[in-house]
């Protein structure tokens, strides 16, 4: 199971070099211009590699990438489809 903090670490490792930027669960990745198109692809690939979850093409939309927490929610649901 991936935690929201794991997601922050995963994303931070795929961003363009931005010295001094701290990635927290609610960091606005898009508003802050942190996530470019290459980083999106890298993050999607890393999620599959580390969690086995394949994010379908139709879900790779800006609204799911607003913050690490938004992305984590998308992945967590797929890891554990049963209601909690």
């Amino acid at each position, binding site marked *: 199971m991936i935690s929201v903090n794991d997601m922050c670490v995963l994303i931070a490792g795929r961003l363009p070099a931005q010295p001094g930027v701290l990635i927290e669960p609610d960091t606005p990745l898009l508003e802050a211009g942190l996530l470019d198109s290459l*980083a999106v692809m890298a993050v999607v690939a890393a999620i599959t590699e580390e969690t086995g979850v394949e994010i379908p*093409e139709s879900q790779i*939309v*800006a609204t799911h*990438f607003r913050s690490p927490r938004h992305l984590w929610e998308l992945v967590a649901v797929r890891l554990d489809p049963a209601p909690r």
Partner: protein
Amino acid sequence: MNGGNTVPAGDRLDHILTTAGREHASRPAVVDGGRTTTYAQLAEAVDGTARRLAALGIRAGTRVGLMMSHGADATIALFALLRLGAVAAPLQPGDPPARLTRMVTGGRLSHVLTRSGARLALAADAPPATRVGDQLDCHALGEPGPAGEGGIVLFTSGSTGVPKGVLLNDGNVLHFVRWVAAEFRLGPHDRVGAQSPLTFDLSTFDIFATALAGACAVQLPEHLRGFPRDVVAWLAEQRITVFYAVPTLYHLLLNRGGLAERPPADLRIAAFAGEPFAPDLLAHYLRLLPGAAFYNLYGPTETNVCTWERIPPQWTTDEPITIGRPLPGMAAVLLDEAGGPADEGELFVSGPSVLRGYLEDGTLRDPARPVLFPDGTRQRAYPTGDRARRLPDGRLLLLGRRDGQVKRRGIRIELADVEAALRAVPGVDEGVVVQKTGPHAGQLWAYVRGAEAQVVLTGLAGVLPRRMLPDRVVPLDRFPTTPHGKTDRRALAAATFPGGEP
């Protein structure tokens, strides 16, 4: 002028806006997020910004960096600089400070404009900024140089490891802008999907051709750039009628954005430039959008668009995608190895859109040279480095490069530029960058001796823009060599195993 564009534009780019501010005053000029700016408002904002910049000492010939991607504020700042006759040099926010510094010093930029409150990330400590109106900050780095000619500087990858500053004057840009507005029959009711960063020459269309026609530049929100599905939705929802982008983006919209399920119904012009369009995808587009005209516009930054072809609606993948014929006023000649005119050879381009020169250490170097054309005239022509063949019907077909310049995702990269950075990484004894053939075709791979992949990648990320970073770094103990003892680049490009072993 023809095609219904009767706007007399003079010979300056900023006059386009003066005219549009008068003739299309209440029409929308720019839509940026939720904000619509009319031509009257745009013209007024440009006047105000130009006055404030003049008060800060910016005048004709002053070289000013413009660190904003695209959008309403960037458009205002660009027109204001052109109004003053300054030299506007767009810079990409987010590029590494070391790279930006080379552009600023190589171009001898005396000022840089940023969004208000933005940090100016240069290698040296930046001086405090002066606020310019509500949206802009002006960072003064030094004294303006002597008064001189204005225009736009576009930085591209350079083979010596230093970015090349291509200086285009107003007339260079206007030649393309006037032709394209007429050829596309751009009018006040068009909604142009503006997505090109100012640092790329495609932006001259989004900004100037749109304004010349009194059309509306609908700005792609920056945060959607990485999401093809959102871009497809944006094209449809914003009722975009004209779109100009690199084939990489068109490919993504079809392959990953679901464009086939939601084709942009209002699109009537789809233009592309910068790299070859994948033939099967182009055929798919023609089937999906029978009402849209597809245009291949060709030209290096140094000439802007210099040849063009409208893809015939009945085109099939059995036919080549050519770069067509020169624009009116432009001329193209192919020179063989001996320098004589031929039906196959390096493409040389002459005409009004050929650059003024490269800005190097503050001075202008002209890469163009006198060339004897088949009609007996000697013209100042730019050697594109592209090899081409002239088809029997006169159209030109690109064959490849005669040097180490490659295109990846539509962006021009000198392999030697990346290699210079690679060899400067501590520990690297030898480094070669190739564009892969085979299963990873198009990717840039760096082969290195003496350092680990992660160390190299981290080192490169500190000095090169993201768009220039290798897709993969492969450590090697020894490099394959040709029978003459040179590094065998072709073998590395084709190597399927990371080690280059058979």
